[in-house]
């Protein structure tokens, strides 16, 4: 191995460490609790690991509930994004119709705006409609964030599936709906599940809109943000860990689709 190659590999490893070590240290803080957080100076290797802080944190009134609400919101957002985004993406991929470009532009336009901020004026209308402080209300707002992505990605997913397959299904007597459902959907399924997982993560991670649109029924992010100023560091770190774990797992599941999705969505 030449010196240059070794230097290069050292760089690769260093960047991996730059990503992983801070996450590991947060976990060490969250699992070690107050003794680890107060320790000075910190030992080189964080030793004491217990789930006591995490359990204590979960037992606080509201934390577990906030997790459940966050989960509920994210699931609803996923369902809405897929249910609204797939048909629209399919139409963009399979039909040339007047207004298709206008629609594409409309979807792209949402990305030039900080969509989360638009939650501000929604509070009034949401209160009137009884959506304020409900998981459904937050999920609707989050869908506005995730839907453009779902439309663009599913459009290119469907584009990649040969039209001939569908036409063959028609010849054999399938209705257009049956052909789309029985022939195209199974082929698109891996990509569609990646879209769904991404919608979930977008919603699970969103802070601003969730904080503005809720008061008592807070998602985990909104709950954590509200308690930042008044809770001990140990709880903040425990909350951070709870926030991270599902996201990392989900991103692991979609890792193969990441590039296809972002290559498409960022064009």
């Amino acid at each position, binding site marked *: 191995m030449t010196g240059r190659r070794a230097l290069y590999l050292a760089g690769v490893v260093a960047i991996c460490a730059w990503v992983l070590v801070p996450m590991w240290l947060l976990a060490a803080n969250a699992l070690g609790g107050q003794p680890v957080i107060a320790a000075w100076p*910190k030992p080189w290797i964080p030793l004491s690991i217990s789930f006591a802080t995490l359990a204590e944190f979960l037992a606080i009134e509201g934390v577990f509930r906030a997790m459940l609400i966050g989960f509920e919101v994210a699931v609803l957002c996923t369902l809405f994004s897929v249910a609204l985004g797939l048909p629209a993406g399919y139409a963009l991929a399979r039909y040339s119709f007047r207004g298709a470009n206008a629609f594409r532009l409309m979807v792209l336009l949402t990305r030039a705006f900080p969509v989360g901020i638009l939650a501000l004026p929604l509070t009034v209308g949401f209160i009137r409609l009884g959506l304020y402080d409900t998981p459904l209300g937050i999920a609707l707002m989050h869908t506005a964030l995730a839907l453009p992505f779902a439309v663009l990605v599913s459009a290119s997913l469907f584009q990649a599936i040969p039209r001939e397959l569908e036409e063959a299904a028609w010849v054999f007597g399938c209705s257009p709906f049956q052909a789309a459902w029985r022939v195209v959907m199974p082929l698109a399924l891996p990509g569609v599940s990646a879209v769904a997982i991404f919608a979930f993560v977008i919603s699970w*991670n969103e802070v601003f809109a969730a904080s503005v649109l809720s008061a008592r029924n807070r998602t985990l992010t909104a709950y954590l943000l509200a308690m930042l100023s008044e809770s001990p560091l140990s709880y903040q770190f425990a909350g951070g860990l709870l926030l991270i774990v599902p996201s990392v797992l989900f991103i692991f599941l979609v890792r193969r689709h990441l590039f296809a999705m972002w290559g498409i969505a960022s064009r």
Partner: protein
Amino acid sequence: MRGRALPYLLVAPAVIFLTVLFFVPLVQTIALAFQTSNGTGFGNFVRMADDLNFHDAVVNTFRFVGLAVPLQLAAAMGMAMMLRHLGRGRDMVLWIWTIPLGLSDLAAGLIWLAMLNDRGYLASLLFHLGLVAEPQSWLTYETPIALFVAVVIAEFWRATAIVVVILVAGLQLVPKEYAEAASVFGASPWRIFTRITLPLMKPSIQSALILRTVLAFEAFAVVIAIGGRNFPVLVSEAYNWQNFNQEPAVAAAYAVVVMVLSLVATVVWLRVLRTPEEQRA
């Protein structure tokens, strides 16, 4: 007849949804911002600008965007180029490098709070190296520069990953033949990078910059997690006016400022990094 209506039926739900939850609130925000007790006007903007924190929020936001976004682009470009020379283990490395893109900015803020708080790991490391003797409080209003650096580090740590993904996806579209031809003619690696790879990657650089700039103007939770109210930015001020001062109209004025900045940034990137039709890959 049914066939012609079908695409519209398929698109309609998404259009209606985006109209109700994107375009209507967009117009509402603007209307709310210009609405004052005596008709319409700039009253809310004046109140926004008269507030003590406004100046800091503007300066902080611009500094933050101006430092974090270029750093992310440069680092991501380096990482994307490094990945090209990786054989075995590329998928694994790529996955690790892109983990942060799935994290909330609130989580990233908390991670770096653990690293940088007064008894955090950086202070401990400096102690072990014999550079400091006591816990260091860096994240207060008395140490604005350290606080600013901490916020930028957290954002850089988290959001570089998405730029890497966009650039790697873009790099896959660049044909290798151009670089090979240039190297046959004796161009140095650096020259190939600046004269061939970089221009060909303009479209993906453009979309990465648009995405990151818009989101950096919107930064919020990372700032609150690390700095509390000591590092005001535009969106955290909007949040304070909405939630603590109960003044939605002033919050909306902030929102309008953020929207205008995002839109201007998008237009600038579209113009500056435009790829002429005949150059598209």
